[in-house]
């Protein structure tokens, strides 16, 4: 792909939306997300010849996106990053209602329900502390491997696994609350 001039347009189409989704959920503001996504796309194209492992192109692109998001993010150095304990994420089996998540294969025509769930997931992802959100975005939304995610975030695979699990538990809990509120 890297040596093929005809790959230009498909690459733009394929990665623009993916980069934007990542920067949108990471930066929080649409204007910032658009700007960071464009900077990322340009950086990717400028340094494409430096890509050493084409099979890991997505991980390489998201690493660049992450770095631009970090530069953009306005975060107080005095604000400690919140961390979840497992205890606060466990279900309370006494009275917690069953979570009914529509299965893609079962309700393909129910756009309203799907849209509502999509909006709820977006809110839940945004509300995750950054250390969990970054892992959930790369592992579950972008479906990158544990190894690639660890490389992008400069943490060990064990840290990725721990943060992913707690992030998933927090999402499950948030979605359960949503069902209860309905």
């Amino acid at each position, binding site marked *: 792909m*890297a*040596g093929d*001039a005809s790959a*230009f347009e498909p690459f*733009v189409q394929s990665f*623009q*939306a993916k980069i*934007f*989704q990542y920067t*949108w*959920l990471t930066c929080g503001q649409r204007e910032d*997300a*658009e700007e960071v*996504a*464009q900077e990322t*796309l*340009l950086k990717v*194209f*400028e*340094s*494409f*010849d430096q890509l050493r492992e084409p099979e890991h192109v997505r991980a390489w692109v998201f690493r660049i996106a992450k770095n631009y998001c970090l530069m953009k993010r306005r975060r107080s150095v005095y604000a400690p990053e919140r961390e979840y304990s*497992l205890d606060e994420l*466990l*279900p*309370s*089996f006494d009275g917690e209602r*069953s*979570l009914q*998540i529509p*299965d*893609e294969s079962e309700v393909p025509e129910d756009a309203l329900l799907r*849209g509502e*769930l*999509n*909006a709820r*997931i*977006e809110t839940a*992802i945004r509300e995750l502390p950054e250390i969990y959100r970054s892992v*959930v975005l790369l592992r*579950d*939304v972008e*479906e990158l491997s*544990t190894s690639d995610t660890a490389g992008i975030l400069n943490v060990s695979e064990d840290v990725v*696994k721990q943060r*992913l*699990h707690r992030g*998933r*538990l927090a*999402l*499950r809990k948030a*979605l*359960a609350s949503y069902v209860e509120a309905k």
Partner: protein
Amino acid sequence: MSHQPPDHEHDHQHGKDPLCLEIFARLSEYLDGELAAEDCAGIEAHIADCPPCVEFVKQLRGSIEASHHFRVPGQPAPVDAELRERLSQAWSEALARKHQDAQQD
């Protein structure tokens, strides 16, 4: 990990049994296929007789699936002509450098 199912006739409290808690801590690795076969068998032996754990696994799997299918609403602004030109130029230059490197190797 013990492979004994909880004793529902006695003092097993759903979600508070130590084995349930141990399983909760490892469910993501289980669902991602990252556990050893022996550990998977232990989890499956437990949840076969623990409806709350079955429900929890179902919920967790459902929320993971929902994340896989999640897409932000709305598309990014189209790449404007100026950016497209810069991208195209950067792409051409990167390709040229790559070909040059290949010839030197």
